């Protein structure tokens, strides 16, 4: 299968440059946080000696005057998602490898695009001009990626026929294997793909294990990895800003409850339950936190969903004071059956809850509220309690 690789090197930096043109020409480092460590995500082209995932203190030791920019991952994902949506107008088979790298299946497009040049032009038009994509067309993912990587910005390359002459002088660092394996290849004196391809596969497997076979095959341009195209998922999202920045788990939980209530009370779910959910929060210093949750049984009401959400919030603490919360439903499902409760007092509570819900539907707004503790220890009185609609 022929594939086209669209490569946007330094994609996070390009996104930052688009929304902040003033940083052009200035030394800057885009950073992200992993646990308690701040690492380098991307940097301006003029800073040498930096690589992604390098610890920030190490980067600042080399370039102390660089401006630090906190990575805005939702922004990058949003821009990349828009690009992928536009690429799908060229071909329905688009794989999202990572932000800044996508593979497109081009087999069967000759009825629409007469030759490779027309496909390249269509893809170039789909990507924002300022991002200058590099494109490569080849018979598999690895070759298409290498072809794209060896292009100038905005250029393209098509690999056909014998690829040995293209591969033989490429450095071994282009192999998508672990850093440890790359280091060992250098230790063995194997610095180019041609040197690796000249040997037999047996020694590689004995030295590197299963990865050894992959190393040998890739050095010869053999890559059987299939294309995994995107498929559209129905995505329903709700979000809200908290009235004040908070570190209280209870405040975040109350906000999550009200978001779930919006989803269940409207006609959005249409009788279906939640099977998959993504929780996200945004802190006051622009860090974000995200967790995916799967439900064995579809959660048909707020109560069954919130207990699981509470455990996740307790097990995975927030990176800082929270400003915004949101949730996105990624999977829906129908329930197998609903069994009513045997005990009369619990059934009475359920009837009361249903009456309150009917009242809300008739009048259009919640009528019955519950006072919930949020931060009862707070010195600021309005932070201590919150009003939430009953049964949510």
């Amino acid at each position: 299968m022929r594939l086209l690789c669209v490569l946007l090197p330094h994609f996070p930096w390009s996104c930052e440059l688009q929304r902040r043109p003033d940083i052009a020409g200035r030394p800057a480092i885009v950073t992200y946080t992993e646990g308690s460590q701040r690492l380098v995500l991307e940097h301006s082209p003029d800073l040498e000696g930096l690589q992604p995932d390098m610890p920030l203190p190490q980067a600042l030791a080399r370039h102390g005057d660089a401006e630090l920019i906190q990575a805005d991952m939702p922004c990058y994902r949003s821009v990349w998602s828009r690009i992928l949506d536009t690429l799908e107008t060229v071909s329905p088979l688009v794989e999202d490898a990572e932000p800044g790298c996508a593979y497109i299946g081009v087999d069967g497009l000759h009825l629409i695009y007469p030759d490779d040049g027309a496909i390249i032009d269509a893809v170039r038009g789909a990507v924002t001009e300022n991002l200058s994509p590099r494109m490569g067309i080849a018979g598999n993912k690895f070759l298409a990626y290498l072809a794209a990587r060896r292009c100038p910005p905005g250029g393209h390359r098509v690999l056909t026929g014998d690829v040995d002459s293209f591969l033989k002088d490429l450095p071994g660092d282009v192999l998508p294997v672990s850093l440890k394996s790359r280091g060992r290849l250098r230790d063995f004196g194997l610095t180019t793909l041609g040197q690796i391809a000249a040997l037999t596969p047996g020694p590689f497997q004995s030295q590197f294990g299963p990865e050894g076979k992959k190393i040998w095959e890739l050095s010869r341009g053999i890559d059987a990895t299939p294309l995994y195209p995107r498929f559209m998922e129905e995505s329903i999202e709700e979000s809200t800003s908290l009235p004040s920045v908070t570190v209280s788990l209870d405040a975040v939980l109350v906000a999550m409850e009200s978001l779930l209530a919006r989803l269940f009370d409207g006609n959005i779910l249409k009788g279906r339950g939640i099977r998959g959910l993504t929780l996200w929060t945004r802190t006051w210093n622009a860090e974000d936190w995200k967790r995916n949750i799967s439900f064995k049984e579809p959660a048909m009401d707020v109560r069954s969903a919130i207990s699981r959400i509470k455990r996740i919030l307790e097990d995975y603490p927030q990176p800082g004071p929270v400003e915004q919360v949101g949730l996105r439903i990624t999977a829906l499902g129908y329930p197998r059956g609903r069994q009513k409760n045997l005990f009369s007092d619990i059934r009475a509570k359920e009837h009361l809850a249903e009456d309150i819900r009917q009242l809300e539907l008739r009048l259009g707004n919640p009528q019955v509220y519950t006072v919930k503790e949020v931060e009862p220890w707070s010195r600021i009185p309005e932070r201590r309690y919150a009003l939430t609609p009953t049964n949510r």
Partner: protein
Amino acid sequence: MVPDTGKTLRADAYKPVNTPEALKVEEDASGLPHAVRLKRRQVVISIEDKWRIDDEWWRAEPVSRRYYNVLLASGQRLVLYKDLVTGEWYQQDY
């Protein structure tokens, strides 16, 4: 970038309780409350307690308030505070 949900604060949104209410207060020469205007003007008989809170110093608008527990001429007790950032007076139960 977090998309703007465009949602206005609705009745079903999570909202705080005991929000402060603006109040008209006359101060004496030392800045203490002398009289308050509820439905009508009432003189402050005594200040039974006062305290100060300073919080959320990291925000652009920190919380800095001086609270007073006052007894009015009508016998009503009231808790009010002066926002030390804006200089405005508010009534709020503590």
